[in-house]
């Protein structure tokens, strides 16, 4: 494992030091060093938008703190939910009196820690409502949607919730929009290689040469099946076959597509995949009105990709088009 770190137990600290310095125009540390907040948070008159999760997914989560997006994030260890205290401190950092929308992903640790943080917030009179992202189709059958993991659809949920808050929406409006956003998203990942946590020093799991894990999660959680590697086109087809019928996405719909590398995937290859995704969607009469292609939500040094398709309506389109500025995503006004 040839990687870049100092003390393997301090990778998050060391990263945060660099991050806070480089992006000091945008973000600042809260009193709790595991909370990164917008430089101007809490922003008067605005609902606070909070998220949080384990590290190793950069630019998620902290990269989405910014104008028109997230106000504060709770930062966990690698692949570990932040503590309840960090979520609570993120609520405090974001709350300007209009309440806090906590928009996070469906993982046991995050669920429990957010719940505890909400109890702390209640005691201090901070109103918090949540939306739990569960866009990862392969992680549970459609009948068990509430068991599904949240993956890159979270970014679109933050984008929509963040825009709604920046437009002056009430807490209920922000929550409703964010919930609609994630309900409109369906995602799937394909893993082509495993990832290695520096403190562990060997791969978290195994993907054989010549095989790929279809439906992989952001921490290497296994998916639907392990199959022989295929062409990019066949990969795109496989992903769409899983994702499209689930909502379902149908002719005449407008969608946003987010194709994210998992960390080690060359950018070139994301566009190769995207070319096919666009072709298939067009052939089905589905119109892509927004694309995001890049490393939006990664898993350390994993090779692979996640595809998210989001059904759009006028509100969601307006929210996606709303200006935002952050390390992970910038939409110009």
């Amino acid at each position, binding site marked *: 494992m040839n990687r870049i770190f100092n003390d393997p137990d301090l990778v998050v600290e060391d990263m945060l030091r660099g991050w806070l310095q480089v992006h000091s125009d945008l973000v600042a540390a809260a009193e709790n060093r595991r909370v990164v907040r917008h430089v101007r948070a809490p922003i008067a008159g605005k609902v606070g938008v909070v998220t949080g999760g384990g590290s190793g997914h950069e630019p998620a989560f902290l990269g989405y703190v910014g104008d028109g997006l997230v106000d504060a994030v709770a930062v966990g*260890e690698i*692949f*570990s*939910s932040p503590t309840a205290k960090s979520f609570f401190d993120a609520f405090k950092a974001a709350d300007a009196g209009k309440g806090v929308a906590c928009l996070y992903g469906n993982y046991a*640790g995050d669920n429990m*820690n957010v719940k505890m943080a909400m109890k702390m917030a209640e005691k201090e009179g901070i109103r918090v409502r949540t939306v739990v992202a569960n866009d990862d189709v392969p992680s549970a059958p459609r009948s068990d949607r509430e068991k599904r993991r949240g993956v890159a659809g979270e970014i679109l949920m933050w984008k929509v919730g963040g825009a709604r808050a920046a437009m002056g929406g009430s807490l209920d409006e922000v929550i409703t929009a964010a919930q609609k956003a994630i309900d409109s998203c369906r995602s799937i990942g394909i893993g082509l290689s495993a990832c290695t946590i520096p403190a*562990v020093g060997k791969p978290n799991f195994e993907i054989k040469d010549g095989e790929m894990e279809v439906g992989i999660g952001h921490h290497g959680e*296994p998916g639907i099946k392990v199959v022989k590697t295929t062409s990019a086109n066949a990969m795109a087809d496989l992903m769409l076959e899983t994702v499209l019928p689930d909502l379902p996405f149908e002719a005449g719909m407008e969608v946003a597509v987010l194709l994210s590398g998992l960390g080690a995937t060359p950018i070139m290859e994301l566009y190769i995949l995207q070319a096919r995704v666009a072709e298939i969607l067009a052939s089905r009469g589905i119109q892509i009105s927004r694309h995001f292609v890049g490393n939006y939500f990664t898993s350390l040094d994993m090779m692979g990709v996640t595809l998210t398709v989001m059904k759009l309506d006028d509100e969601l389109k307006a929210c996606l088009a709303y200006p935002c500025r952050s390390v992970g995503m910038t939409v110009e006004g």
Partner: protein
Amino acid sequence: MDREQLDLESARVMFLRVSDAMVASKDLLTELDRAIGDSDHGIGMARGFEAVRRELERPPFGSVGALLHCIGTALLRSMGGASGAVFGTLFRGGGARLHDERALTSAALARFLEDGLEAVQARGGARTGDKTMVDALEPAARAARARAGEPLARALPAVAEAARLGVERTRDLVARMGKARTLGERALGHVDPGAASVHLILRAMAEFVSA
């Protein structure tokens, strides 16, 4: 030496030894989580019990409940992850009704584990058979209740043994919770890392009282 119970100072020292044991189990637990999870359990437990160790260095504690609460809080504040919430809750929830106890008796142990179990289940919704730490905690709590009248030094080894058997049983379970859920049958043959942690904690306690 068959200790009947532990005074608060001895209980504190016992949990220092437990902390040492958990920090020393970092690689073992990480390996277990690597098999069916995301490889961070050992790292988290080690970080958590290093924090516990720091906290326990500042006595005195006024009651068993205060001691357990302090441990739980240290875990909660330092660990994160599912296990931070779960083990933090085990200690804090388990100590909630022990704030009048000045010694750790077998009865107190039973209450700690029973109340802890209840709190963990309330927190995360796991039931027996879901392949979580509940599968070790639940039989341990039952064993502790059954031996609530015995000297602590006799009860604890039996409680630890019950946890161990619970851990072993998780080998035959498919996960219904957490990161191992989507593994399905691929989780068979592997024990649950959180369950292993419950056993390691109880085993270190048993070793301390038997030493």
